[in-house]
Structures are given as C-alpha cells and as structure tokens.
C-alpha cells in the first residue's frame, strides 16, 4: 500500500474511531444536550436503574412518544394523561418547566421486579422543585420497563359558586399614569417584627409587615446592613419572599437574605417598608387545611391548600412564619406549588425547616399569595 492510500485509510479509520469514542463516551456537553445525566446513553435498559434513567432522559428531552412507549403499564392510561401528569392538567409551573436533572435510587430488586425512587428536579420560572416518585420496575423479556405511578386528574361535579368577596378598585387621575404614581397617600404599613439571624450562607433578616390601613396595599421591604463603622455592607429587598398584596389589616412575613455577610460585622439594620395603593380583591380565597408541624428529625410543615373560589389559580406561593413558645418569630420559609389549584381540589404543600431551628418552633402561621393568568389585566 502506497503512502497516499495508507494516509487515506488512516484518516478514515481514525475518524470512525473518534466518532465511536465520542458516541460511546460522550463529552459532558454532548451528554447534556442528549438529555442524559450519566454519560451512558447507549446502555440498553438491562437493569431497573437503566430503565428509569432512560425514562428520565426521554422526559428531559420531551421525547414523549419514546417515554410513553417504554412504559410497562401504558395500557392503564393514555399518552396525553402521562404528559399531563408531568406537565400539569391545567396551566401551572409544571407546564413550561424543564427537567434540570434527575436521580434514580434503587430500593430493592428481585429477579422480575424492582422498586426505585426517581427524583425529578424541575426548573421553573420561579425556581426549582423536586418531584419524587416511587417507581415499580418490571422485567419484560430481556429488558426492564417502568410502571409509571400516574396521579390521575381529579374532578369536582359541576356547580355554581357565588362570589361575594370584598374588592377594592382604584380610579387613576389619568389613563396614561404609570402604576405607583397616583397622587394619593400611600397606605399605612408597619413592620411589626424584625429578627436577624446568622446562617451558614450569610445573614437572614426576617419579619412581619402589617397593613394597618383600611385600603389594600402593594408592599415590599428593603433592608440595609450597616457596619459598626457606619459604612453600608449591603442592601437587599424581600423580592419574592413576601406577599406583595396586603388587604386591610393583613400581615405578611418577609425574608431578606444577605449572602456572604456575618452578623458579627453588622452594627445596625435599616428597614424601609414601601407601600402603594392598588386595586385588590379578597378573591380567590385559599384555605389552608390539615396544617401540621412535623417535629424533627426532618422537620416539615405539611398541609393542603384548597381553592374556595370558582376560578383556577395557576401558581400559589405559600409563606409560613414559625414562632417559639414566647411568640417570637424564629423562621420564615416558603414554597411554590407546582400544580394549579383547581376549585375545591386540595393540593398538598410541604415546607422544610432547618434542624437547628425546628426544635424552637411552637406555633406557625401560613399565608398564601396567588397568581392567575389574566388576573391583572
């Protein structure tokens, strides 16, 4: 073989070998775009974990056809039901969520079936949430397939719900005025509690804000940490860790985080509550049911939200205040609900509490703020 042919053959062979290597052991960026988390994309589901991993990959790629057809129990539900189980039956955080990652943990395995836990970490517009499913995996011939634990859609019977909740409208001085620039006095709001704590990732300032006026207020709180020398260390706002719309006499907890700052550096804290008059309605009313504090270890506050109105709430945000036996605020935590709140269908919530704080907790109080598509138009 002459040099030219040898070179041509070498280039072809090397190229094919490199393609094979790149496909069998893909670089991390290739794995990410292929939807996998482990880099073993070509492994057939010859184990229960591989079957669950493959399913996770298909879900991540939104390859619904492949995901559904790989299920062992697909005869029990339609592909549409499978998709809606993951993305929500009504418009919610799940609808446009992307699967950021997933983990598969085997529990036990026999010759023909196995139990694994699938932890799906979804990324949404307001943050991430974890969807944990106990999955039964069964052997089907020479491979394994997942029995998907579908959560069926719940229905309520047709009915009429009278709406007679309070509502406040604001007449602006001109149609072109920007929101917040109305020539009226701002509602009177007051910080009724404020408590800074030192955490591993920095200072956390928590408290409660009261609307002591007789009109609704759109509120936020800003805190500025001042060093002992008098210089400003940092200034942050409550962002989404507050219920921004407060009806008359309503109270909202708030949390302001200052990452990377130690409380020992702080000499004083300047708190600035802001309020603006806005239109508001007491509807929709969300009832908190079966609220229960579960003591440590693994302390959580669990309960259910029930939408008492007739309209769908697309996103709900639960904010809970935790108090010690002296009634002192010791912690504030929140959770976005990833499923829409359909009228009268309870949806679970679960808020974790840090272990070191959990032991101090005696009572708790929960508020819910809601977002419904088109509600502010």
């Amino acid at each position, binding site marked *: 073989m002459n*040099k*030219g*042919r*040898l*070179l*041509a053959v070498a*280039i*072809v062979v090397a*190229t094919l070998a*490199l*393609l094979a*290597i*790149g*496909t069998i*052991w*893909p*670089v991390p*960026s*290739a794995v*990410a*775009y*292929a939807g996998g988390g482990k880099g073993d*994309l070509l492994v057939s589901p010859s184990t229960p974990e591989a079957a669950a991993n493959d399913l996770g990959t298909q879900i991540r790629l939104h390859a619904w056809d492949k995901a559904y057809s790989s299920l062992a129990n697909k005869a029990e539900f339609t592909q549409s039901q499978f998709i809606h189980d993951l993305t929500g039956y009504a418009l919610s*955080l799940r609808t*446009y969520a*992307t699967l*950021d990652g997933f983990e598969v943990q085997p529990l036990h395995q026999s010759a023909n079936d196995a139990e694994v836990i699938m932890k799906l970490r979804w*990324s*949404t*517009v*307001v*943050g*991430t949430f974890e969807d944990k499913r106990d999955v039964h995996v069964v052997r089907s011939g020479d491979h394994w397939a997942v029995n998907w634990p579908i959560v069926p859609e719940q229905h309520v019977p047709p009915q009429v719900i009278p709406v007679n909740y309070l509502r406040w409208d604001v007449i602006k001085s001109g149609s*072109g005025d*920007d*929101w*917040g620039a109305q020539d009226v006095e701002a509602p009177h709001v007051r910080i009724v509690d404020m408590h800074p704590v030192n955490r591993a990732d920095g200072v956390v300032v928590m408290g409660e804000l009261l609307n002591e006026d007789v009109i609704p207020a*759109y509120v*936020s709180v*800003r805190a500025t940490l001042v060093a002992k020398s008098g210089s400003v260390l940092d*200034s*942050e*706002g*409550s*962002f*989404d860790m*507050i219920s*921004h719309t407060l009806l008359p006499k309503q109270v909202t907890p708030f949390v302001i985080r200052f990452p990377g700052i130690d409380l020992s550096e702080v000499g004083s804290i300047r708190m600035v509550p*802001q309020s*603006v008059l*806005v239109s508001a309605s007491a509807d929709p009313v969300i009832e908190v049911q079966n609220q229960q504090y579960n003591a440590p270890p693994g302390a959580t506050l669990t309960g259910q939200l029930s939408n008492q109105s007739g309209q769908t709430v*697309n*996103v709900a*945000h639960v904010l809970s205040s935790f108090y010690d036996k002296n009634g002192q605020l010791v912690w504030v935590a929140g959770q*976005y609900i990833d499923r829409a709140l359909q009228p009268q269908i309870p949806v679970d919530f679960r808020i974790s509490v840090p272990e070191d704080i959990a032991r101090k907790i005696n009572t708790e109080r929960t508020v819910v*703020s809601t*977002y419904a*598509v088109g509600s*502010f*138009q």
Partner: protein
Amino acid sequence: MAAVAIHLPLMLMQLPLKSYDTNFHIFFASHYVHHWFDPWNVKWFAGFSQTTYPPLPQQWVALLSWLFGLNMAYMAVQLAAILLLAVGVYRFSRLWVSPRAASYAALASVFLGNESFLVYSAGQLSTTFAAPIYLNALPYFFDWLRYGKWRSLLKACVLLVAAAAAHHATLIFGSAFFALPVIALVLLDGKNEDREADEKPSVQAVIARTVTLTIVVGIAIAVVLLPYWIGLIRYPITQTPIPHPSRASYILSPEWGLNYFLVPYGALILALPFIVIRGAAVARLRPLLLGFWVAFLVGLGGTTPVGKLLLGRAFEVLTFERFSYWAALLALPILGLVIMEFIDRFRLKAAITVALLAASTCTLAVAWSSIRPADAANFDVSSVAQWLNRDGHDRFRYVTLGFGNKLSRLAIMTDANSVDGESNSSRMLPELTKFGGAALTSSKYFAKPGMDSLRAMLAHADRYGLKWVIVRDSYYDPLLYFAGWRQVDELDNKTITVWGKDGVPPATPMNTSQRPPRWQGVLWGTLPFGFSILALLVIWLPEKRSRGFRDDDLPLSTEQTIDGEVIS
C-alpha cells in the same frame, strides 16, 4: 459575477437580518456612528467597553451607514466579504492546485453552505469578514517563506493584522489550520528535486522567516488591538460557560447534527471521500488535507473528543460552526481539483451534477434561516422604543424578556439603557456572568442557569436603576408578579406588556472603572480601521508573480490510474 448574482439579491432583501448575530453587529456599528473614538457604550450591561470585541467590520458598517443607512451598510460589508472570499479562495488554492482547479474552488466558495449558514443564519460578520482577508494574506506568507521577498512580508503582515482587527479568533486558530499547512508546503517543495534553487529554501531559512513574520505580526496585533488586550488582562474572562448546541454530539442529538453538519456542509459531504482520497494521494496536498481533517474534527463539536482534547477549557467557551467553516475553506482547493477531474471525465453530465449539488447546498443553507429562524417571531420594536423614549421612562434602565435578537434592534432605537445585552464576552455584571445563562431576554432557554441569572438581576433592580421589564412572553409573568413588579402598560396590540417596580431610583452611571481612557479610544478608532486602509493600499504594490503550484506538482495527473482505472 456568480457571487454578485447569487448574494446581491439576498443582501438587497436584507435576509441576514433574520440571523442570530446581525443585529448585534449593527448595534455595535450604531455606537461607532456616534462615538467613533469612544468605545464606552452605556446602552448594555449598565455600561461596557466595545474594545472587548475586534471592531473592523462594525467600523466599516458605521462608515458606510452614512451612505446607505445601517442595515444596508451591513449588507454591503457582508457582500464585500463574500466577494473577497472568492478572491481569497482562488489565491489560496493557487498555492496547491492548478489555476483551473483554483477557479472551481473559488466558484465553489460562492455556493459554500458553511458560508451561507454563517451569513444568513448565524450572522457571524466578523468570522466571514476575517477569513477572506486571512486567505488573501496566505499567498504572501507563502512567497515570503519560499522566496524571502520583503514586499510579500509587508503585504502578509498588513493583511494578517487587518484580519485580526476583524476577528482575533480567526487569526489564532487560522494559524494552526491554515498557516501550518502552508509552512509544510514550503518545506515539502524544498525537497522537490525539480524545483529551482530559489524555490528551495533551507529549513533554517523557513523557520527564521516564520519566526520573523510571527514576531512582526504579533507586535503589530498587540499594538493595534492594545485596548482589547488591556481589557482582557484587567478583566479576564472568568464567567461560567454558556451552553451552546454546537458542542453537542451530532450523532446523539441529530437535530443539532442537522443544524451544524448537514445544512452547512450540504453536498460537500458527498465529496468528502474524494477529498480524502485525492488529498492523500498527492504529497503536496497532504498538509492541507491534515489541516482540513483536524478542523473538520474540531468542527464536529462534541461528536468526537478531539475538540475537548485540543482546546481544553476553551471548548466550553468557543462555538464550533466556525471551525466547520474553516474546514470547508481548507477543503476547497482539493474540492476544486476533484471537480476539475470529475468534469474532465464526465463532461456535461458532471458539470450539471456539480452545478445542481452546489445550488442545492447554497439554497438549503440560505433557506435554513427561514426554515429554522433564529427568532421565529418577527415583530417591530418601534412601539417599545417610543414608550421608553417618552415621559422620562429612559431615566431608568430596562430589560426585555422574550425579545430574542430584537434586543439589539431595540437598543439601537431607544435612548434608554439596559442591564442586558448580546455580547457575552463584554459583560461584567456578576448577575450575568455567574450562572451560565446568555442574554436575559432569552433566560428560559437556558433553564436553571438562565432563570437564576434573571432572578439575581431582578433582585438587584434598585442597584441598577432597573425599573422596567418589557415582556413578550407570558412565561415570565409569574416571576415578575411574585417578585414585586406590576404590569403598567400594554403595547403592540397587547402582545407586549410593560412591568414596573415602585421605589426604584433613577439609573446612575456604573462600571466607570472599566471605561477605557481617551487614548485607548483614539487608538481603537484609528489603528484597526487604518490597517484595513493600509491593506487596501499595499496589495497594489507590484510584485513578481507567485510560483506556488506548477503543473508537474501533481504526480497523479491525467492519464494516470487509480485502482487500475483510467481517470481521464
């Protein structure tokens, strides 16, 4: 003529405006129109320096905009780059193959899918502007190495610096993919017994001349792009890498294989076996073949481990469609030879086949910008610009969500400043660099990193005077609602909503420590553009004709056989 016939109508239709980056280049140019000697631009990232990106093509767009307006000036510069590419490919090919084969290569460059993909889908003006300048410099580089002609050195240096002023990455990687094969060619020819004495420089002479040119060009580029290097040293790029689908495996993710391999290469894929066989068969073509092969493998992104191995961390920063472009340019001389032999053998049938394949390749790559547009929603941002420009709204900064590549278009039209922007290498704000998302306006496409970046920016709205969020994608509404923004207006038949936050202080100048001093602005406005003018002048200096390729350089010429078959 072919380049004009094909690409002029497309430019007159302003087709590149649909691409990913065209508006970004026009935005940079719009700044040079008003502030030629002041690269500090307050419209993005709460203030940034345009010395973070080589300026030459944008400055030409800015200059020509006085005659044609910004859009058509961009088209004119892009068209000039396409025309220059045909010339560059011909001159480069003449080093390797006969004039006739080089002509076919130049003609093929007009139909090259990779070029059309970059022009009409990616909008990479800088890459497509720099590559032809670089290709035109290489014959002078060759002449300098082989004959030691000082005029060739001068021309090579000026053109290479002009190429670097257009796109520094082209020069860095071009040195490996294009210049090394040329050096190898000179050394190979030096061993050729049939060459005359003055065509056979010693290895020492070649090395000395290479080092001389490298030093001269290195110093010149260091001076011409000095503000860029100063900025890079003061503010090294430490931001979290941003995902880019050109780093995917085109086998495991075939949708990206379609986008970054099938569409750009087109019918060239059919010619790959012949390019390898022909390139390997001829000793003189082997360096070129190897250069093509490495660039081709790197251009496959994450399909092979080559890119990651060769580039290291840079693999996570670079995008790889330009490597495929360079690979295609390197293949063109051999392709020209293959086409020539094909036509010699099959005459009219071959000519028709080649023409059809070339036309379909170009058509697909051009049409791809419409089949899979960078921004599916083609909407007018003038209503948003008008809103920002009235009633003192421009006292505050703004950010758009769901605007795609219209972000740059809006920035051109409005007086208001934004904390967002499309130049990833120019941004310094920690909220933008920390998480691994690209422009905030497209946050949702970067999943958690993108949304984390957006949340961080919104959380620090007061710090940046960020009062307005202009939304064309209701996906973001829940975040704005829970984070304390309220809808204040609706525009464009309610397809765009304006959200505001109360209590935000007016925007104040920021990042001023990053602002380049005046002398850097003068340098930036003078030297890169000046070198392009100098390049236009020096290439007219008379020079003895280059003696790169000779007819006896191809051992497998006509009448010879491959695998026992007569090939002509």
